[in-house]
């Protein structure tokens, strides 16, 4: 985007547009210009991929509807994800107001500049996401009238994407209208996280939802009326019939109605409450009169006495919890994993008895690997001097605290949540065995995944682009498959052989102990090699200027 530097309004639009790429959730430490190009490239890729895959197929009828749904789902979900990531940037933030308010600018100028920037931002992403799909669509749909094909596809995709964007904007507008400042801040963060989980879940459920469409429509199942993704397939069907299904045609009306309602709500809340928001942002929030609730204090006391009695363990344990609860970036990151996990759970729950056995293992794998990835992202990195300056003891206490947090605040609650379902679907003995099997295995997985993790979570810098994504994906897919599938088979066998089950628990316990012992040994060896205590890592080591083959080592 280029703005005329001599015209303040153009400069404001440019400024607000740039701020969309400068949010903590989207670019924690990146260059906004690089992020624009990267984001546009990444978002255009799925459409191009599906075009290449689908063009030779020659589709019609319900097969065509399924492919339409794939494109529509991407358009809607991507726009939703963008709006969720930009949740805090939809209105000017405190920094904007503090800098711009003292300048001789009208609030209306700020409003119109922000609105134009938001409009431009949405249009650019809508076009980007749908560019390849719309451009090459006439080759996928075998019908005549190329221009009509192109336009109806583009209209359905843009309408779907716009609907999601406006709905999320309207949701925020309604919240800001109805709730007082403090309640808004609390609720807004929760809703942003829930939306992220929901959208990621829908993304992974796209094939399932696409394949379910025909049966839902043909059986006139009422569920089809509740999911907006299907509404816009209905709209598409009205513009360019592929199946002439009456249910789909009726859904088209819902799409138009939904789009209008979202637009009216968005305009009706965004416009008038802009001024109110400005005032809210500039007011310093009142400090809370009280700290943790009585129950919270009691739980904290119990945890400190029983689980983390040593001060450093306690410090790290609480720090992890506080960061996950309050850092937007980390919450959204974990919500992404959460969405993936929920999608897996829904897909698995449709399958057989073995599927249920695999479910807890799958979820624990997603949870622990998600936490490991989240712990690697720094939070307020420059504040880590507090850890560096106070590192006064063996680092094992810091590392143990991280493990205790995962066990107590992630693995235990996960299996606690799964327990009622297990008790419903399995006899109580089998359910208890299954829970114990999964929990113990999760502890072993945690030891394996955190073997070389020598940091306090969120305190170490992270250099982008160092991760070998292909290698990592292969390792994760393999690990995931082996872990959830083969170990579910092992469990099915173990439950019938008590002696073998006992050996399993002893073996996993021994493996955990050995891994711990090995980790402590490696820290000690490093300390002896450098003649100083082996410290925690605060800097992600950069690539060397010259990478040697290491032949002389």
């Amino acid at each position, binding site marked *: 985007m280029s703005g005329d530097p001599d015209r303040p309004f153009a400069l404001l639009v440019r400024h607000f547009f740039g701020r969309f790429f400068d949010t903590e959730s989207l670019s924690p430490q990146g260059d906004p210009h690089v992020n624009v190009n990267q984001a546009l490239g990444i978002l255009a890729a799925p459409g191009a991929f599906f075009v290449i895959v689908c063009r030779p197929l020659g589709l019609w009828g319900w097969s065509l509807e399924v492919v339409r749904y794939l494109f529509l789902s991407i358009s809607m979900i991507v726009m939703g994800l963008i709006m969720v990531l930009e949740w805090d940037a939809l209105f000017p933030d405190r920094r904007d107001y503090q800098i711009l308010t003292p300048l001789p600018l009208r609030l209306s100028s700020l409003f119109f500049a922000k609105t134009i920037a938001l409009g431009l931002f949405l249009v650019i992403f809508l076009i980007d996401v749908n560019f390849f799909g719309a451009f090459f669509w006439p080759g996928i749909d075998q019908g005549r009238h190329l221009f009509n094909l192109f336009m109806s596809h583009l209209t359905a995709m843009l309408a779907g994407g716009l609907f999601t964007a406006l709905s999320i904007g309207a949701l925020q507008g309604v919240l800001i209208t109805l709730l007082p400042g403090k309640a808004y801040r609390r609720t807004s963060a929760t809703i942003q996280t829930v939306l992220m989980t929901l959208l990621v879940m829908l993304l992974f459920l796209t094939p399932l939802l696409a394949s379910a469409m025909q049966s839902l429509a043909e059986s006139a199942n009422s569920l089809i009326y509740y999911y907006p993704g299907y509404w816009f397939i209905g709209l598409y069907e009205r513009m360019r019939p592929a199946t002439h299904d009456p249910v789909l045609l009726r859904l088209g009306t819902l799409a138009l109605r939904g789009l209008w309602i979202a637009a009216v709500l968005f305009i009706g809340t965004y416009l008038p409450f802009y001024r109110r928001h400005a005032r809210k942002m500039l007011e310093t929030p009142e*400090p809370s009169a009280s700290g943790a609730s009585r129950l919270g204090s009691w739980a904290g006391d119990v945890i400190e006495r029983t689980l983390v009695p040593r001060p450093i363990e306690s410090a790290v344990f609480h720090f992890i919890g506080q960061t996950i609860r309050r850092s937007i970036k980390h919450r959204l990151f974990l919500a992404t994993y959460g969405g993936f996990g929920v999608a897996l759970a829904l897909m698995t729950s449709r399958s057989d008895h073995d599927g249920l056995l695999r479910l807890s293992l799958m979820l624990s794998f997603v949870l622990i690997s998600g936490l490991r990835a989240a712990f690697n992202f720094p939070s307020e990195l420059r504040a880590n001097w507090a850890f560096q300056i*106070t590192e006064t003891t063996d680092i094992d206490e810091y590392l143990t605290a991280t493990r205790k947090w995962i066990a107590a605040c992630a693995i235990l609650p996960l299996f606690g949540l799964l327990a009622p379902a297990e008790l419903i679907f399995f006899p109580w003995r089998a359910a208890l065995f299954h829970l114990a099997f999964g929990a113990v295995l999760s502890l072993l997985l945690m030891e394996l995944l955190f073997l070389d993790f020598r940091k306090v979570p969120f305190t170490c810098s992270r250099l982008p682009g160092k991760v070998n994504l292909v290698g990592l994906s292969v390792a994760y897919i393999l690990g995931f498959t082996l872990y959830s599938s083969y170990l579910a088979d092992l469990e099915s066998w173990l439950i019938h052989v008590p002696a073998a089950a006992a050996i399993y628990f002893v073996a996993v316990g021994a493996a955990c102990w050995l891994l711990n012992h090995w980790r402590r040994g490696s820290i000690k060896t490093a300390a002896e090699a450098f003649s100083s205590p082996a410290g925690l890592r605060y800097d992600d080591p950069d690539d060397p200027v010259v990478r040697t083959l290491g032949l002389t080592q």
Partner: protein
Amino acid sequence: MLEVQHLTKYYLNTPVVNDVSFVVKPGEITGYLGPNGSGKSTTVKIITGLLEATTGKVLLDGRDVREDPIGFRRRLGYVPEEAILYSYLTGLEYLQLIGRLRGLPRAEVNRKANQLLDCFSLQSSRHAMISTYSKGMKQRVLISAALLHDPDILVLDEPLSGIDVTSAQLFRYLLNQLAGQGKTILYISHVLEAVEKVCEQVVIIYKGRIMASDSVERLRDLMNVPSLEGIFSQLVEERDLEAVARDIVSAIHS
């Protein structure tokens, strides 16, 4: 006693700290003075172990601190130049975090944290997130965090930045009392009046080099000027500040 011996730090072949040596004695408050960019904070970061020196060493009671960095950190209280804290924690939570990381027992952490917050007039804001604090409030949290474990050595980098007059006065009394208890205090600042009121000894650094290191009284006598500001101007300021001010005014009007 804290000794800095021949400390040098290079950034991209440029020495930002060049052969810096000075001594901070127990029971004394030593001021470390210099204009912006003179190398004060780099020296401090090396002393606290946040940066490594290119050459030179820091000794505590005659022993290189690198021999026992953990032991040194246990005895050190540090207020950094910038108030960089975990802004999503509350003031109380931040002090609890630091107290626990310092290895203090839970009851002691809670008692001391609340007492310090109360003394620094932060009790009513203790449950508010630090992101909502003013600069002065953040600074008071940092000072509290540095004192929480009763350190022997205090390294205070611009501790009064953003602090109101009353709190600044309180802090000066506090420093005098701590020095009276035998603490080793290094006070870094570019606010000459504050240093003159608090410090017995001053070290003046300019462009990475030590320009003077002596008691304030002796420097006044030696240089025949009545104030630290005069000493400082003679040692480090080469520009005609009145002329610069005239240039600024003409730039505004142009």
